[in-house]
């Protein structure tokens, strides 16, 4: 399903962020230092240079010494060379110069001078490293990173250390803890020490460690803690000290409590996000259904058209205005709206207009329209999904708590939906067109008698509904795949929203959409995605038993139709 796809996208994004940014930073830092700081600290630089040169050594023992020394010097300038050595991208030329090959493998630069070199003209050999060299290397890299000036780099190193503890570095962590000012890094440092402290002989230290873990830890610690309260096959506790066992089980339950809270927060957020998307998809549907009594089966295709409009705008920017590429979404908003609205109006004028009073046949005719639209998009853009890129300000996310990322794109979409709903509400409540729309919704004949051109109102309303769906497509393009079947994925859910929320009132649609979003997301972890969907359907049917016209049905005379 789509949602899983987007989830993966985030996880990928997250890891990309983690991996790439520090590396780029090292590189920037390195160039900065290489160009600016070298003359200032010539002595240190000489020391660094000689140690760096040692990396080209054929003998592993000498190589290790050089690596160790670089770690002790702690100069971030050595990082690129060390990382390159670890990743087997450091090579030695015949005259002993160290060349760092970049990730593509086509270009290289001198590790000392930073000058670009033509790697094809040189006869290069790789220093041979084994596991013992690698161990030394990791320690040296960790040391430099832990003492780095950039808190992000320190955070990354600390996290790495938490995953793969190394006793050499723990000593360093203990030392740098006092100087650490960044709270997040401190937290991780505490955890690193606590993890180490669990295995110490000092009971007091172990208890302290457990408390730290209970306070800051995440689920990764659970296995460590469970080992403390487990019994072996004979039924004896693995851990002899009852006090440790008690504290450990307390820590476990505190971790579980926190995890539960985190999960609920994540469910809430993703439910809100799904609900807001459903709201965009269903809002137009509910308005047109309320007004004209027709269900537009091609409504999902308006979402798709909005998404493809965004795709086209993106491509135009890529082609003609690459320097403003990151801002393509701004003009895409009116364009997606207009394209969908115009297509909606054309459909209303040519087809749907002639089917008034025959709701079931409108259903079939609009289904036919949706088939034609889907096939047209397939012939124009191909049957495959197309790529719509997130601009930089929508990629990434806020890590609210350990392991829970709220992507910026979803947050922005929620805000966007609030604006759209507010705008539609204002349009319906505060403008004369809105007044006419409401009048026609309540009583078509009477409104017509009062001089309202119901045909025009129908046309504008249909355009508005389709346009809002187009905006929904734009939003969807930022968090999921864009393909010809995009609309089909959401259409059943948006129908459910309309059925649940009733017609004629925006508040009903809002409640229906958010309700469905929350129910879906909170049921998913308990029942699984599919059973969750089925339960949602059952819930909707049961609710309809109580309120056949939807949760927020119009009351009184209007309910007659």
């Amino acid at each position, binding site marked *: 399903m789509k949602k899983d796809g987007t989830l993966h996208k985030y996880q990928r994004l997250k890891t990309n962020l983690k991996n790439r940014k520090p590396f780029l930073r090292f590189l920037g830092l390195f160039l900065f230092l290489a160009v600016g700081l070298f003359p200032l600290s010539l002595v240190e630089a000489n020391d660094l240079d000689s140690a760096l040169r040692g990396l080209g050594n054929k003998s592993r023992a000498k190589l290790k010494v050089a690596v160790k020394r670089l770690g002790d010097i702690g100069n971030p300038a050595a990082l690129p060379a060390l990382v390159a050595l670890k990743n087997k991208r450091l090579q030695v030329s015949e005259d002993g110069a160290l060349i760092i090959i970049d990730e593509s493998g086509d270009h290289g630069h001198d590790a000392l001078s930073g000058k670009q070199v033509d790697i094809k003209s040189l006869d290069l050999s790789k220093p041979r490293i084994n596991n013992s060299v690698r161990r030394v290397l990791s320690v040296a890299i960790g040391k430099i990173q832990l003492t780095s000036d950039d808190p992000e780099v320190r955070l990354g190193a600390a996290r790495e250390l938490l995953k793969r503890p190394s006793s050499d570095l723990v000593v360093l962590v203990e030392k740098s803890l006092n100087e650490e000012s960044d709270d997040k890094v401190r937290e991780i440092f505490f955890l690193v020490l606590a993890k180490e402290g669990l295995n110490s002989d000092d009971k007091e230290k172990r208890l302290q460690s457990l408390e730290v873990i209970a306070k800051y830890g995440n689920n990764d610690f659970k296995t460590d803690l469970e080992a403390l309260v487990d019994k072996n096959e004979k039924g004896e506790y693995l851990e002899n000290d009852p006090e440790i066992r008690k504290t450990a089980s307390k820590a476990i339950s505190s971790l579980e409590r926190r995890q539960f809270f985190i999960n609920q927060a994540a469910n809430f957020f993703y439910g809100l996000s799904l609900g807001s998307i459903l709201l965009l998809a269903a809002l137009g549907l509910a308005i047109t259904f309320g007004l004209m009594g027709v269900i537009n089966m091609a409504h999902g295709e308006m979402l798709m058209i909005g998404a493809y409009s965004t795709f086209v705008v993106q491509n135009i920017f890529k082609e003609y205005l690459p320097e403003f590429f990151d801002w393509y979404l701004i003009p895409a908003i009116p364009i997606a709206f207009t394209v969908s609205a115009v297509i909606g109006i054309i459909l209303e004028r040519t087809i749907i207009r002639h089917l008034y009073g*025959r709701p079931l046949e409108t259903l079939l005719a609009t289904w036919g329209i949706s088939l034609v639209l889907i096939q047209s998009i397939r012939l124009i853009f191909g049957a495959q999904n197309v790529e719509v890129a997130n601009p930089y300000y929508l990629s990434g996310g806020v890590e609210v708590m350990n392991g829970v990322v709220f992507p910026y794109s979803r947050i922005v979409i929620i805000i966007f939906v609030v604006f759209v709903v507010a705008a539609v509400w204002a349009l319906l409540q505060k403008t004369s067109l809105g007044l006419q729309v409401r009048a026609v919704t309540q009583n078509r004949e009477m409104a017509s008698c009062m001089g309202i051109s119901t045909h025009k109102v129908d046309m504008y309303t249909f355009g508005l509904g389709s346009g809002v769906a187009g905006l929904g497509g734009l939003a969807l393009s930022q968090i999921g795949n864009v393909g010809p079947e995009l609309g089909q994925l959401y259409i*059943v859910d948006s*129908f459910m929203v309309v*059925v649940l929320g009733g017609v004629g009132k925006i508040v009903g649609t809002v409640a229906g959409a958010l309700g469905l979003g929350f129910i879906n997301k909170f049921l998913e972890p308990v029942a699984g995605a599919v059973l969750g969907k089925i339960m949602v359907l059952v819930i909707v049917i049961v609710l309809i038993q109580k309120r056949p016209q939807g949760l927020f049905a119009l009351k009184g005379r209007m309910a007659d139709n």
Partner: protein
Amino acid sequence: MIKKIATLHSFKGWILTFILLGIALVLLPLLNLLVPEESVLHVPDYIFSLLGKYLCYALVALAVDLIWGYTGILSLGHGVFFSMGGYAMGMYLMRSIGKEGVYKSDLPDFMVFLDWKELPWYWYGFDYFAFTLLVILILPGLFAFTFGYFAFRSRIKGVYFAIITQAMTYALMLLFFRNNTGFGGNNGLTDFKRILGYSLHEPSTKVGLYIITIIVLFLSYLLSRYVVRSKLGRILTAIRDAESRVMFSGYNTLHYKLFVWTLSAFLCGIAGALYVPQVGIINPSEMQPSNSIEMAIWVAVGGRGTLSGALIGAGLVNGAKSWFTVAAPDYWLYFLGTLFIVLTLFFPKGLVGFFSRFSSKDKMREPS
């Protein structure tokens, strides 16, 4: 009894019916057996599976016409009942493969593949044809009865009902797509070997199934005809045209709607069961919402509210589909989409309605 049946058609109608039956039951099999293969008149073997498939669709169209054409309730979920019958038959066919599957196990192949050790409880009994037959005849109707009771009781109708049934088929499709549900997941049930001991690959079995399908369709047609011509049928049409007035006249429309809804699902389930051995596969895509909507268009093409129209429509649309998917696959959806639009706009009464404009006989039946 025979007298009653005889009044279902006019004399001319009966003649036409028997001519059609004669062609389908006698002439085609004879042309297959007696005429040499080189001849233009020879009917190849594959025609019977193809025609059998169309006949099953025609039975579905009959069922949809009862509920939509006559009672005015549009269901977008008939694929569910069709699949229920189909899956029941498929389970029997799976069980009768025995140990001849790829893995030489007593369990169906997909269960071995999923590393299941035992047959799930809901597969018990499908070793026996009689049990399977019972399930096919009862389950779709029972499910429809339950669903319909709750839906009709709360007076869900019109587009609401259409949407709810669509959601039902969508949800069940998702359920059957799961491997853990125990019906073969994505791939469904396939690789059948034999039915009641007869190999499904033998032409004679295919012709046999084809003949059975014709007989079932004929009987279902007579049953439907009987229902719609009875007083009950009049009330159904009245419900379609003005449900409130029927209620005010003292009828409990819930009972009538529930009856025709259940009957429709029952026929649809039988169609599914006949479909599976002839096509050789049943999978969750039969429950796609689009499939159920297509069923409605078969009826719309032929003409709602006329049983013969439903049969003709199913044949025409599926014939066109077979032709398009070979000749111009890219344009099939255009054709289907345009068909939906043009029909509803210009030919709301379908082909039968269009042609009966010229003969004044059928003026009685006017779908709203």
